[in-house]
């Protein structure tokens, strides 16, 4: 299935992260994508005025794994240790609609042809929604990079955008080179390490407390929001069945009831479309918002982790220097090492502070935008429902 996503649609979708892709010197988007079985092929399109690129306007095909490679190389890059690396986009997951499609196939015999067609339509819409979401999330990842003063200049980023051959070979080499050092570190050690260090800086102390707590809370909220959305979808499905049965009843009916049933069947069909939109809007504005910032908070935590490690290194280097001084051996090296560690730590702290502050700003802006939009959409859909319902009531009263 191919999808060319037009601009207006993209505007609607590009909601979780704001202020992206406005700098004309480097504009990135994913204008279309192809879904073959489970593999999604994204077309990454770049428009740039920068001389570092060979062409001003070009496109390349990329797979999800290429994005992961790019993310991981950035994480591994020492220079970026003091930055919040934008979270990697999650793998495209068509499991849910696929399972539902399977169930639908099994239950085909129990439904009327019309019902089955509608359910199938609903599922195809769900497929499409998942597809659109995954495109959006991959696009935002790239746009976060392109709008970051440091990361946008990354060499690997450029390769990712420009290299017109398959990246698979490069990916393999990279794995061998880095060995996934940072990534393979036991993640569970994160929390212990971060909370364990003696923090001298108030700012980081506060951030640490905040991020650790906020992460668990936002993770929970994401899960609960998802359940809400699923219930809305279930209700929409029920409306399909109800509408279909009312239609059958109407067909068999020869009394005055026939018209009632027809109108009612029609109403439920319209209601289910609205309900479906309520579900998808809530998902986009609320669930996706929460999910995105959950991942972003994890990226921020990773930054704290790297800084904590740097602090540990610095403390160790101090100890080593003391030891060297005691033994009167290798003092210059120890001093040099200690200086390096200090510099690294200071650099991380300085950059980290900037990053975390702008992160908060970003988060607040995004929440504001999405909560407003969600409320407005809820109102819009409810008003729509009222109109539909009232129209039907008036009609029924007049028959």
């Amino acid at each position: 299935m191919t999808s060319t996503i037009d601009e207006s649609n993209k505007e609607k979708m590009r909601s979780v992260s704001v202020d992206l892709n406005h700098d004309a010197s480097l504009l990135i988007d994913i204008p279309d994508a192809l879904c073959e079985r489970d593999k999604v092929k994204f077309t990454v399109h770049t428009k740039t005025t920068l001389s570092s690129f060979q062409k001003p306007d070009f496109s390349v095909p990329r797979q999800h794994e290429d994005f992961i490679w790019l993310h991981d190389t950035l994480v591994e890059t020492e220079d970026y240790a003091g930055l919040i690396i934008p979270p990697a986009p999650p793998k495209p997951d068509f499991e849910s609609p696929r399972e539902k499609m399977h169930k639908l196939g099994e239950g085909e015999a129990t439904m009327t042809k019309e019902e089955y067609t509608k359910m199938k339509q609903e599922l195809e819409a769900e497929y499409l929604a998942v597809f659109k979401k995954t495109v959006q999330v991959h696009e935002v990842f790239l746009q976060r990079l392109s709008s970051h003063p440091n990361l946008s200049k990354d060499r690997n980023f450029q390769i990712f955008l420009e290299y017109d051959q398959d990246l698979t070979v490069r990916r393999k080499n990279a794995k061998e080179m880095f060995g996934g050092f940072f990534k393979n570190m036991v993640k569970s050690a994160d929390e212990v390490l971060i909370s364990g260090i003696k923090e001298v800086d108030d700012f980081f102390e506060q951030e640490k407390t905040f991020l650790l707590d906020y992460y668990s809370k936002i993770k929970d909220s994401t899960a609960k929001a998802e359940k809400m959305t699923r219930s809305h979808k279930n209700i929409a499905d029920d409306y399909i069945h109800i509408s279909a049965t009312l239609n059958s009843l109407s067909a068999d009916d020869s009394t005055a009831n026939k018209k009632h049933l027809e109108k009612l069947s029609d109403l439920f069909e319209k209601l289910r479309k609205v309900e479906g939109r309520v579900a998808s809007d809530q998902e986009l504005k609320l669930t996706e918002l929460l999910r995105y910032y959950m991942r972003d908070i994890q990226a921020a935590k990773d930054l704290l982790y790297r800084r904590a490690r740097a602090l540990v290194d610095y403390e160790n280097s101090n100890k080593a220097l003391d030891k060297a001084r005691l033994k009167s051996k290798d003092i210059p090296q120890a001093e040099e090492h200690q200086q390096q560690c200090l510099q690294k730590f200071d650099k991380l702290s300085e950059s980290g502070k900037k990053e975390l502050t702008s992160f908060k700003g970003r988060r607040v802006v995004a929440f504001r935008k999405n909560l407003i939009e969600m409320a407005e959409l809820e109102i819009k859909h409810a008003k729509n429902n009222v109109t539909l319902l009232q129209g039907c009531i008036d009609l029924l009263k007049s028959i």
Partner: protein
Amino acid sequence: PPTDDEPASLPAEDISTNSNGPKQDSLFDDDPEDLFAEATEEVSLDSPERDVLLSDGPSPAITPITPPTSVLTPRIGLHDDMFTHSSFDEFYLLSLNFSLPQTSISLFKSHEFSVKRRFSDFLGLHSKLASKYLHIGYIVPPCAGKKHWMTKVKVGKEDQSSNEFVEKRRSALERYLMRTVKLPVLLKDPDVLQFLESSELPRAVSTQALSSAGLLRMVNKAAEAVNKMTIKMNESDAWFEEKQQHFENLDVQLRKLHASMESLVLHRKELSVNTAQFAKSAAMLGNSEDHTALSRALSQLAEVEEKIDQLHQDQANADFYLFSELLGDYVRLITAVKGVFDHRMKTWQKWQDTQMLLQKKREAEAKLQFNNKPDKLQQAKDEIKELEGKVEQGEREFEQISKTIRKEVSRFEKERVKDFKTIIIKYLESLVQTQQQLIKYWDAFLPEAKAIS
């Protein structure tokens, strides 16, 4: 609705607390354990207490259907003390209010009064009416029996002790009674009058009393038997054939619709629960948030969602009590209709059998005449005379039941159309209310979200 300016003219009576004689025998139940054993309770019949009689628990925001053509609008309230008994000794205090215009036939001594009735009394009434009227073609409204309710408890769908469960049963009995009194023939029936008025109901130990479920089983067995026998009844009347098919289709579709509605109720309840959980989670998130304005907005979001979860809960109740229960009632009613059609077939069969017997007797008589057996001949002639009478009666009965069914089906269909229309409109109005509330809540939240800076 009760009219308070009508003084209750019945004197206050004390219902004695003696037990009602021998334990309710198992004519009503198949299980050894009698779940709806009676208990007695003191109750005052004065009207001031009437409001107290309504259910303690959450009551759905619906008023019972007021059928315009009926003279009665019974309202069933629950007795205050019902929960002091063991879980199955329950009663429903029946408080009947009449919206009788003064000029109507006063079948009753007063316009408003209350009587107490047990669940088993309802079943007893139904079985009496069914045995009297079903076989002559009247569509006697069914009453969901003990099996219906206990099955739900067994499969874990209902919590026996919950207020909700009690309310469902109260509501079902109210609807049963309302449908029963809508039938002119039933309203005049002495058993119905006694049920409605009598301060103490005698134990229904009639020998032909059957449990509601038992009766239904009997009807169904009869239907099955008719189907299994290859009596292709010479249906001379296309109307019956058409109607039978019509009710078959209706049965299938209504069951399907009912199942979908039950699914909707379930999902709406889930939505309510999930929304409540999200509200709590959002509140925690708001507490954790260190940006003041955003924290405030998140807390407000949590409050809105909490209100919305209650909205969904109320809507689920409306889904259920208005639409779903209506469908359930009609599924049961259609079964009664089908039963009535089957009775007609049985009546026809009986007539045919009698006719065949007469034919045989006539042939036998002819033989006797030929063989010149005078004494046996007289006996044969007498038998033939009797049978001829029976054949005539059989034909009459068949014609009568056919006529009654025609009338009944016409009445039933009219009722059905009206019922559905009224309920559907009420249901849609409940949906409108929910949506309008949603608009209010989100409208109130919007400035909070905009205030984030």
